[in-house]
């Protein structure tokens, strides 16, 4: 063989070895990613759950299978977040006086029709249908599929940003863009300020990272709410208290349960029929 060809061959092998070693090194995730991903994966894949000993008996457990159930999360230092576990949410204007039931799942104090728009989860993606409004500035006729970062407009004044922050979950988040958005309510509450809406699929993440559905920038750890057996469970990485009792790892949430941990606290409340 000519020395030239040999030289070329050796060269390519050397470069290949270098590439392999670089690739191996780059596949290591950062520790935080590892932790949150393993937490999430254990939530998704684990077969048996460890039951908590101090399961609270005071509050009725939140059942997610009943239609029209909405869960409010009152989170200290963060805000009031609405969790919609259903497959679809209908937005509408305020309830007309004289009607006993609202015609929409979420009533916004804005100039909207009674049933103005609907967002529906279909597998991994979301379908949006509105009577009057646009997506990213362009009018929508009929239905459209939403993608991460879309700006949804309902009527003249209401704007929401649609996001799917976590790659591991199909849950979506609707938030006001920069300005505030109208007060809203579900069922027959009084209208209140809501800081965001989570359309929960299997999982809702609360925490400091960019993949959290409910951003809590000052928290040191991430808390996971997940659906299991049509109940809402909470899972924390560190120690936490559930209604003043110590909680290990995971526990179902009841209506009115207060969960608190190292530097955070929130309360879950059911609103619905």
């Amino acid at each position, binding site marked *: 063989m000519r020395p030239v060809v040999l030289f070329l061959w050796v060269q390519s092998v050397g470069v290949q070895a270098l590439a392999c070693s670089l690739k191996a090194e780059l596949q290591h995730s950062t520790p935080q990613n590892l932790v949150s991903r393993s937490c999430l994966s254990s939530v998704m894949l684990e077969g048996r759950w460890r039951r908590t000993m101090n399961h609270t008996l005071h509050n009725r457990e939140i059942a997610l299978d009943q239609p029209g159930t909405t869960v409010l999360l009152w989170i200290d230092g963060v805000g009031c977040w609405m969790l919609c576990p259903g497959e679809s949410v209908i937005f509408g204007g305020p309830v007309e006086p004289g009607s006993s039931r609202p015609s929409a799942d979420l009533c916004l104090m804005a100039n909207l029709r009674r049933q103005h728009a609907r967002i529906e989860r279909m597998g991994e993606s979301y379908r949006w249908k509105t009577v009057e409004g646009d997506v990213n500035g362009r009018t929508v006729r009929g239905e459209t599929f939403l993608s991460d970062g879309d700006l949804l407009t309902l009527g003249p004044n209401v704007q929401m940003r649609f996001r799917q922050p976590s790659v591991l979950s199909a849950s979506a988040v609707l938030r006001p863009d920069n300005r*505030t958005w109208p007060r809203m309510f579900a069922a027959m509450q009084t209208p209140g300020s809501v800081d965001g809406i989570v359309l929960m699929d299997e999982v809702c993440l609360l925490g400091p990272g960019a993949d959290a559905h409910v951003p809590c920038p000052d928290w040191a750890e991430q808390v996971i709410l997940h659906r299991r057996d049509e109940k809402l469970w909470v899972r924390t990485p560190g120690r936490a208290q559930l209604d003043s009792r110590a909680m290990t790892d995971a526990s179902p949430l009841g209506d009115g349960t207060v969960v608190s941990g190292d530097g955070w606290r929130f309360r879950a409340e059911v609103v619905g029929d």
Partner: protein
Amino acid sequence: MGMLTSGREWETMKFTFAPESRPLEGYTIKRAIYRGGFGEVYYALTDAGREVALKLLQNNAEVELRGVQQCLNLSHPNLVTIFDVKQDRDGDHWIVMEYVAGETLDAAVHRHAGGMPMEEVRNWLRGIADGVGFLHDQGIVHRDLKPGNVFSEAGVVKIGDVGLSKFITPSRRSAQTQSVGTVYYMAPEVAKGRYGREVDVYSLGVMLYEMITGCVPFEGESTGEILMKHLSEKPDLEPLPPRLRPVIDRALQKDPAKRFASVTELHQAFEAAVLGKSSSVDEHVRVVVTATPPTDQPGRAPVDRVSELEQTVVDQATVAPSIWRPTRRALLFILGIGLLALVMSGEPGEDGVLVAWVTTCFSYIGYTLLRRMKSTWAFTRPVLAFVDSDSQPVGAQGGLRGSWVIPAAAWAFLVTTFARADMADFSEVAIPGSIGMFVLGAILHAICSAFRTAPQPARTADHWTPPPARQSPPRPIRPVNHQRRHQPRRTARHYYRNRKLTPGAFRAMPFRTRLSQYANSATLVVPIIALLTGSVELLSPQFFASVSGAGPGWENIAMFASTAVIASWVLIGLSKWNEGRRLDGGTRRLLQMVGGVAVGLAAYGISETLLIAPAPPADVYAGTLWSQPGDPMFVSVGARPLFVEGGRPSLLGYVAFFGILFGLRRWWWHADAFRSKRFRIGSVLLTVLLAWLVSSIWAFPSVWAMTWAAVISSAVQLASVWTPPEERFIAKEV
């Protein structure tokens, strides 16, 4: 008191009251909002469902109560309304006030890293000035103005914490002389204990400074240090726009008598400075405003003035159009120079045309270089202003892309029809001639442009950026306040998915990603080129035929393949290095040209080492279609030949070919991860065409040139990382 039961080993809960607590009759606490200097604030609902904010006063309750009582019946659209003051069962006082759902000015300032847009600053200022002005009219000093206390709800600015306001008493000396609030915004005389409503003017001045630049004027490690600076150090006004400096300077005067007497005056002066109208506010302000260097022309609308204001500060930031596309005027200008050269050379035959062609090329290169250097010489400025004032680049409106090629090609056609290859003396005629033409033309146009109005300066973005030295966020102060001060910003990464991302998309890639992708591609290149070389050998066995004629010449194969590999490595490396960066095409091509020169050197080195000729004797030098075969346009550059005897290209020949080929073609599009298709035959064919053109102008074996071009182009495309459109995402800093 609602505290959690004992038995906890970890950190105490931040807030005293738990959700659903009812310390006051008729109110239910739902969640905590924050903990401030005076106590904790909670979000609560009345029994009927009315939203309120409940503020628990824990320390110094007497001081606040006195202050709050006077504010109980104040009502103004820009003030957070106080509904009531109540006492709970344990004797603690609660302020019941309006709940404002919206972001604080604090959050808004941190959202805009380098300062807010001027329109937004003016909106905030208007609301704050109206609210504080109303308070002053009632005889109340706020005393605790800071961005954490100012909210914006649906576009309406609301000032909170009005409970801290102090009555202006005639004695002006208060018994309680505690420092309150965050010291960044505290006027110097507050520390001395004597103050009136000018302290609010000072605080507003500090807030304006922070809104515009993103940082407070006085920072420090401790309260004492900051207070010292408030007392003695002059604020650095340099990051502010020049027109606003006198306004902020006056607002931040240490002596209260020298400041604006009221926030309304500050507001008016600020507006006057921003809009450029010299309103009859203040002698001091007016005088200083006209002292700033005049930049505009009379008769401009106020809107223009605002953007001009920002323009005067940012001289460096200009919009860079693609420098390879001359504007229409510039193109005419260049062709005109060529025509002039033709006429003035006095020889209408072949030599004259050649001179004109070369002159045109040099003018084009000179023009491009001048634009690149941003006109450092005085006489070129009016020239460029003239030619660029018609700011439509050729082909920009969806016409033919890169249509500067067309006139160049037309000239090439003419020239090659008439010209012969005797170029020995062009260096003596054309180079000085064309430079002289350009200089003459520039001087002429400098004279002409003196009689024209200056063209519109390029509009920068509305957002004005301060010089980068002032970008550091303020440091947190721990001992002063329980209120959460901003930590060093944790930038959140949001991933933006879009199938429509193109190679032009700007994205940030860490160095390791680039390196790993490059290593991947580089290793793939070798087998691909081996494959392609093998197929060339199969398709045309005489291609690599050695001189001896017996069997394939391994030296030829090695030479071809190794040059192709090195060329691909260089191209992929350059593309990967610059992928996603904001570079214009001209810079990239320049880098590629340098890479090509290096490849040419390497190729020459290899060919000399292996002592081979990449072609059988000279009849492989195909000339252009219209001239005799064996007759490329340039066989030498000046006195140096492009090929030596035996038909081998000289060093210069290699360098010229690779340098020009790399410098002309848009190679980075071949290698970008976001290109539209992994492999495009059209790209390969275009590269081949270009290689043929280059080799017919500057002598180089054409067949080898075209084959090299095909192989390199294919290898680069096949080996480079390609992301299918569904998986394309770029990380956006939030």
